[in-house]
């Protein structure tokens, strides 16, 4: 589907006003975008009549480790009517990672973003209900960060692992 890919790239170019960086060796194909445009771009892709990315399959957080000092959020979009997948990648600094929430576009984002917040400590601004979801509410630290060290005790119970 080369013409769909063209269209995706032209929309991204229009919104971001920048050169497009594709994600190397990514299946399905994906694009690295700036974090400022995520909401406006998602809104455009969701409402575009030729693409219509109506489903957000997955939001993944990735921690690149202390040396690189970056974290990533990947959005796996899928368009049911046009059978087209797309990955959007946002790169964030490891200190105070913040990105705009896309719950306004897709309702799925609510729990998926909560999970990313729970595991990586990435703050999604304007999220309606950003609480921990899998870990207990008073858990210290973000478990999927590469430098995570768990606490010795949780409420007086030794974490014996």
């Amino acid at each position, binding site marked *: 589907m080369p013409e769909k890919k063209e269209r995706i790239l032209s929309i991204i170019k229009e919104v971001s006003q920048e050169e497009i960086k594709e994600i190397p060796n990514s299946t399905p194909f994906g694009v690295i975008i700036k974090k400022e445009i995520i909401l406006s771009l998602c809104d455009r892709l969701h409402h575009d009549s030729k693409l219509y990315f109506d489903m957000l399959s997955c939001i993944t957080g990735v921690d690149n480790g202390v040396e690189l000092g970056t974290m990533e959020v990947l959005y796996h979009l899928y368009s049911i009517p046009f059978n087209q997948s797309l990955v959007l990648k946002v790169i964030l600094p490891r200190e105070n990672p913040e990105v705009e929430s896309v719950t306004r576009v897709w309702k799925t984002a609510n729990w998926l973003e909560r999970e990313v917040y729970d595991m990586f400590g990435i703050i999604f601004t304007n999220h309606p209900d950003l609480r921990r979801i899998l870990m207990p*509410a008073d858990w210290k630290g973000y478990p999927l960060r590469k430098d995570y060290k768990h606490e010795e005790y949780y409420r007086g119970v030794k974490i014996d692992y």
Partner: protein
Amino acid sequence: MKDQQYIYKPDNLIDSEPNKFKVSELKSEEMILNLGPQHPSTHGVLRLEVLSDGEIVNDVIPHIGYLHRCFEKHAESLPFNQIIPFVDRMDYVAAMNSEHAYAMGVERMLGITDQIPKRVEYIRVLVAEMNRIASHLIAVGTYGLDLGAFTPFFWIMRDREHILRLLEWASGARMLYNYIWIGGLFYDLPVGFEQRCREFIKYFRPKVKELETILVDNKIFIDRTANVGVLPLDLAINSGITGPMLRASGLRFDLRRVDGYSVYPELEFEIPIGEGKMGQVGDCWDRTHVRVREIYESLKIMEQCLNQLERDHKRTREFDPQAIVPKKIRPKAQELYVRAENPKGELGFFFRADGRNDIPFRCKARACSFVNLSILPEISRGVLIADLIAILGSIDIVLGEVDR
């Protein structure tokens, strides 16, 4: 036994998972009702914080995470082939399907998808469809149990036992198989397996009909489920709902057909959708009905696989299901998202390999039950508490997969 189980401090006794609603902020008629985590109708360790006004549900907040076993953290320190048992334990009533999706993802990363022998693929699809039937049986039977129909539960457990015994014969385990390996299978099917499968199908078809008669077409069941928990299609898509729930809302969307992975393009099967026969499209009855129809379709797929396995891709002495199982799994540096149709919806895996290690840099599971459960507050505002149980049962969650 440890000397001291825990250190007592008064602070340690506060709620670890506090309610979202505060009692002091409630209106005069409202009450917080706590359902679970130890309640049979929540299908596991799920806690529902229900804000109720008399018998009407004003809002419901699911609290999950009681069965969190750190799958993604474990996966970051294990070689690819050793993750398969962990994948089994996610959706533990449909482990074969999860294994199939996982193995497919790693094979795509290694680029060996085309080399997998056809016989291996057919066996994979055969066992996956058997497990899909088992999972749907659990879904329908326990749903009946939720609504007060006791007999169907015993019937489905009896019939599911046949499937579990067959799978145990093939793999050695009843529920958590570790049977589908990356690049192949643990073993070939045992001699005589195909014959026994055919006997099972012959036995099982009338039993599904019986199940349909006693439960799905039952007047009491229809009264409890029709027009309850209606999920409109646009909301379903926007909320990322997949699997039988999405199909019950009226969209003919099945990843087995859309993506056409494995040997599914060569097989013939229908995709049942909700038609609103008893009420509106996308109500609880439709969801159950779609699951029962899918059992028939899975039986059809099983028969076609058996035909292939007995004719074109017969068992031979030379056939080795582990022939192309890689000894060392080190994919090139890449990112890959793979998805497959599980009994409960789209199971996705995201992998990042860095090309230098035998372990994934990041392995994320997009669990279908997790996303499907997130719709619960939306569709259960304003219903009766008894209907809340009916809606929750019709979502068909497995807490092992919700919490991972």
